[in-house]
């Protein structure tokens, strides 16, 4: 299992590695990490528990269990990935399994935000391109891909596919400002000013 030292940090401009494809629309965070595993006060064990129920059901044939996918860093998904519960345990579990970037047709918002806060880019791709990408990953699962945030594409030596990431998140990933905490606390004075003008914090007592 990965250790925290290999987790995303600083500027995130490209992810190089194999792809793993996970078919299905509306894959919710309960499936990514079933609720019983939320009973923890840290995130350490989550990597092994990712997709626990789906994996059990498929008995070794789930993409996350197929040996050839081991070590993959780029996850390819379909539509509305990560819907449902807001649990950050979901991207944490994916990250601890080894995923560093996700490409899909669309993402649920809270999940998307949680990924961004961990430095995991979620890029969208057109459906037709996605089908081709998945096909190509299936045919040659050991191919190394380059998920390039500056060029907004994912490519190997032979083909490339266009990606998009909204401007705000892209900027934050590329310049390393996706870890919002320090930026937010540096605005202490402005926060005080906002507090001062909110009626419910000043006049309602």
């Amino acid at each position, binding site marked *: 299992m990965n250790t925290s030292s290999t987790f995303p940090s600083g500027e995130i401009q490209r992810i190089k590695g194999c792809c793993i494809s996970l078919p299905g629309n509306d894959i919710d965070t309960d499936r990514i990490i079933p609720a019983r595993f*939320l009973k923890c006060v840290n995130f350490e064990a989550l990597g092994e528990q990712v997709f626990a129920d789906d994996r059990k059901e498929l008995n070794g044939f789930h993409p996350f269990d197929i040996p050839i996918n081991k070590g993959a860093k780029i996850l390819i998904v379909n539509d509305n990935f990560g819907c449902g519960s807001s649990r950050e345990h979901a991207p944490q579990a994916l990250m601890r399994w080894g995923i560093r970037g996700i490409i899909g047709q669309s993402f649920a*918002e*809270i999940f998307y935000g949680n990924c961004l806060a961990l430095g995991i880019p979620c890029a969208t791709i057109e459906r037709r391109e996605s089908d081709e990408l998945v096909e190509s990953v299936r045919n040659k699962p050991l191919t190394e891909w380059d998920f390039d945030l500056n060029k907004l594409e994912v490519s190997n030596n032979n083909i490339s596919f266009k990606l998009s990431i*909204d*401007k705000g998140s892209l900027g934050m990933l590329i*310049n390393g400002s996706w870890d*919002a905490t320090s*930026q937010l*606390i540096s605005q202490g004075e402005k926060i005080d000013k906002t507090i001062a003008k909110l009626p419910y914090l000043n006049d309602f007592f």
Partner: protein
Amino acid sequence: MSKNTLYDKVWDLHQVGQLPGGSTQLFIGLHLIHEVTSPQAFAALKEKDLSVRCPERTIATVDHIVPTNNQQRPFADPLAEEMLRTLEMNCSKNGIKFHGIGTGQQGIVHVIAPELGLTQPGMTIACGDSHTSTHGAFGAIAFGIGTSQVRDVLASQSLSINKLKVRRIWVEGELAKGVYAKDLILHIIRTLGVKGGVGYAYEFGGPAIKLLSMEERMTICNMAIEGGARCGYINPDQVTYEYLKGRSHAPTNDAWNKAIKWWKSLCSDEKSIFDDQVNFNATEIAPTVTWGITPAQAIGIDESVPESSSLPKNEKAITEEAYSYMGLKAGQEISGLAIDVCFIGSCTNGRISDLQTAAEIVKGKRVAKGIKAFVVPGSEQVAKAAIHDGLDVIFKQAGFEWREPGCSMCLAMNPDRLEGRQISASSSNRNFKGRQGSASGRTLLMSPAMVAAAAIQGKVTDVRTFFKTNSDQSSKTL
């Protein structure tokens, strides 16, 4: 782009500034925390040597992991006990008010904040839980956040976030007898889809919404997230003010009048511009039940499980997945489907009015043989009010179990779970695969009245037949 809506006005007031990445730094007026999504946030804070910026704007309770049959400490489950201990310790170290078990104020976070009068119009509210949208019922802008963001709000009382578009959901007409807020929101989600609201805040309005009580409005906003909308809200009105008046954290005397004036000024009006609008008519809606594995896979009680060919192409795969997981066939009627477990509770429908409605249905009747039926009040205050009105006795006499407050079988983080392929009629909000604690367990979402009816009949039943029988009987006795 939307303009002059309540969402715009509240957003503008809470903007701290623009962040380098382009998102907004938004001040959070009320931060609600619980045991599941906060421990890692506190740990991160400690790691960075940061403190909680506004402990007085942070409120904690424990809900997800609490057992509902025996709340004696230490809990039987050592992991649950550890989570609660961690929360207690984090709260006491940081000066955060904790509404713990036995205080009379513990309960599901989205139930207690409104009942304590903490949730108020015009606030921004965040909580590490997706159903934070519930608080929008008061005209607050409230959204669920992840643990990293919980850490951010603890550290800075603000969030890095992008503004949503605003869709007005306009509901004409009036809900018929036996049709509830839950049916309305399931109908809306069924129509717009589970991701129809992605990128939007939903403003619910129109005559049918105006007629809803505060608790019904909370049911609507609670499930906005199930339709993909991170926020759902309703403009505050007389119903809102009457609910709030006199609650422990509500303004009093002069401040109350000032507050009402400000709250009124926030409402969307003729000058408001929405990104788009979708219209519904409440009169046409029947009691609605989910048959599948997403809250959008819902049908009226008179309908049958849809043919995948009758649905949009991109829904084919999830529809077929649902047939196989649920063990249902296209064309099969939902009414009459046998069930095993009946659950009344959760932040969607675990409030006092929900319990009253369900109690009316079960009063003087018996739960069908072989059915496990139980009621879990949403909070200690709800439990107290219900006991005061004798609802617990009505339920127990009918064969329901009466439990202590908590999230219970809404999700699988406490001892209340489905077993094997059991099928539940549930007043909660999610019917995802495995949601209720068994990897093959099945959930049918419906209103508390419909759950009550299902418990009595042992199968999915149109609750409206209960009213008919009653009036038939009374006309006979007359």
